[in-house]
């Protein structure tokens, strides 16, 4: 186990900045996900932590020790890649034992730890099978088990689940959480899938265009996104972010008085320093409630289309010039063409600066 610290770490490929002055502090035993769209610099960041990629400038520390120029094999990191590097000519048992044998662990201990890991990964019944005979799902479990068994000081995983089918991904997320609870290894997990990052990590580092956007717990990232990018990237369907205009005690959508949405004083306080009344109003599709049209505090929208997807209905709406989504439970299924009333849970809504796209912070509530 080690802590990991990136200090102003930058990676440049020619003119292209892959990672720009990244500061990131990962605690001992912490599970951190690096999340972002393809090309955002997340894999490059991980490769620099591993030592596979040199840094252009900045420092990387393990437990405070500068490892910036320490080669990959001396950093004590374990890897799992998207395309599991398994020795297919060897049995499952030999693959699991490989890392421990290289370390020169005694035979009895190797056997014991191989059995434990096989049990943990539900591979006990496959120990003597050739790796080439395993299914895709089993191969990925073996790849994770093989890296985890040597208990590296830092465990790095690059999109380890992205080749697996949806149901198995759900299962593997639960197993990875269990693995981390049991081994308490420092884990850095790279993914483009926000559900994986939310479901697995103690903290998420969200990246876009080579720049760290926010680093915090899943709950905070979901509830208090730092900017429009993070707000839209986390959560599915994405947060609605609409052009609005600040008025007395609320906002109007698209400048129409008919679409006035009253907001709490707390949220309104976020707009105190704006120079113009234009603002971006953000609210999640699941934070809208269906009500009668024209009822107090509500605004009216027309239903464009309804997607019924099992336990929830995704309702596509238009109000004035704004298109947005609502998610309702199975009970509530308005019909296309219908006008409905909507209540926004304004305690969970946000205002963003239309120029910087940063979230505008409400004033701290005074106590008493």
């Amino acid at each position: 186990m080690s802590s990991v610290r990136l200090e102003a770490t930058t990676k440049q490929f020619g003119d292209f900045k892959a990672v720009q002055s990244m500061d990131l502090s990962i605690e001992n035993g912490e599970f951190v996900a690096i999340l972002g769209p393809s090309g955002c610099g997340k894999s490059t960041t991980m490769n620099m932590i591993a030592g596979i990629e040199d840094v252009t400038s900045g420092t990387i520390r393990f437990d405070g020790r500068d490892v910036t120029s320490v080669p990959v094999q001396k950093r004590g990191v374990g890897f799992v890649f998207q395309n599991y590097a398994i020795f297919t000519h060897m049995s499952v048992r030999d693959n699991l034992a490989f890392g421990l044998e290289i370390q020169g662990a005694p035979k009895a201990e190797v056997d014991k730890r191989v059995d434990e890991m096989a049990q943990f990964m539900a591979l006990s019944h496959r120990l003597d099978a050739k790796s080439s005979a395993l299914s895709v799902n089993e191969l990925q479990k073996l790849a994770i088990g093989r890296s985890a068994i040597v208990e590296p000081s830092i465990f790095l995983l690059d999109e380890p689940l992205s080749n697996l089918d949806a149901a198995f991904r759900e299962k593997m997320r639960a197993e990875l959480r269990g693995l981390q609870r049991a081994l308490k290894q420092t884990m850095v997990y790279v993914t483009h899938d926000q559900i994986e990052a939310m479901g697995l990590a103690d903290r998420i580092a969200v990246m876009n265009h080579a720049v760290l956007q926010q680093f915090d717990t899943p709950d905070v990232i979901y509830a208090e996104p730092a900017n429009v990018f993070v707000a839209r990237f986390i959560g599915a369907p994405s947060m609605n972010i609409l052009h609005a205009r600040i008025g007395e005690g609320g906002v109007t959508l698209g400048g129409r008085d008919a679409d006035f949405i009253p907001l709490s004083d707390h949220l309104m306080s976020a707009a105190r320093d704006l120079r113009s009344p234009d603002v971006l109003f953000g609210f999640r599709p699941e934070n809208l409630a269906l009500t009668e049209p024209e009822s107090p505090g509500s605004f009216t929208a027309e239903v464009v289309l309804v997607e019924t997807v099992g336990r929830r209905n995704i309702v596509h709406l238009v109000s004035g010039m704004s298109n947005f989504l609502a998610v309702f439970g199975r009970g509530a299924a308005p019909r296309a063409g219908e006008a409905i009333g909507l209540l926004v849970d304004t305690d969970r809504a946000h205002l963003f600066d239309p120029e910087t796209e940063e979230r505008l912070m409400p004033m701290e509530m005074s106590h008493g």
Partner: protein
Amino acid sequence: MAEIKLENVSKRYGDVAALDSANLTIEDGSFTSVFGPPSSGKSVLLRVLLGLEPVDGGRIAIDGKDVTDASPNERNLSMVFQNLALFPQLSAQENIVFPLKRRAAREEDINARLDQVSSVLSIAHILHKKPAALSGGERQRVAIGRALIRDASAYMMDEPIAALDARLRDVMRVELKRLQIEQGRTFIYVTHDCEEAMSVADRMAILEAGRIVQVGKPDDVYARPATLYVAKLVGSPGINVLEGEGNDGSIASVLGLVNGQTGERLERGQKVHVALRPEALQLGDPADAKLKGQISDVERLGGFSVITVNNGEAQVRAIASGDAPHRIGEHVGVTVDPAGLHLFNIEDGARIG
């Protein structure tokens, strides 16, 4: 425009029945999704419909006319393939009008159709570009445009958006649905993605090993799955399945008694699969429920959480709110909303009640 009917259609490859007496009626102007896991027969179904493969038994009719032995051209069906198959040396426009040029249509008809298709798909501004210069979503629209420009009886799509990233898939599936509603054409859409199959279609057909096991509105399939197989395939997170048996009106399971009069359809001691939708499970005080266990996993996903309740022998997953205060190790009771409880025969998995 046409109604398409498959009656007892079978297709074998050696010993494997790729389609096994498949029956399906696709109504004129409907959007039907064909859904199943890999190798369940989805793509074979499209291929025999298109006439790319002969059938080994059964009958295919379009608008009442038997086309079982008709050539692909005689069937007048239009197709969007998963790998798009755009010509790289042709511009988007040349790709789109290709099917009409090949049929030697009149220039002004071609232009009128092109205008209509490119406005529906919002691609007028990219028509001059070659495929290599287009984004994934734009290429997909061009491929759909090429299929739509023909005046076909029905439009077939085989995993048309599977190669796009998650956000773009969500956008494209809604565009396709809107397009179909606006144009009222008959769409048949093959996918292995359950949410997509439910989202786009007004009817879904579910395949199991070459057989069509249920056809219905997506919402009805979700609310009343015909078999345990369908119940497990449809819905995310997946449905919980426990072994249970009738117990004087309630159901005894390995996690305890399921609450309410949920077992009144069962004889005492009759063994069943008890399937419970995660959103139908409410967690509370263990003293208030007979179904109980200990929380072994909490997955907080923002808008909701998935909580696993375990008693050492079995486990169920429940959906709770995003800020639910549950902790690993906590003892909880589980109450069940009967609307999310389904019973299936232990032998053949058929729905009970």
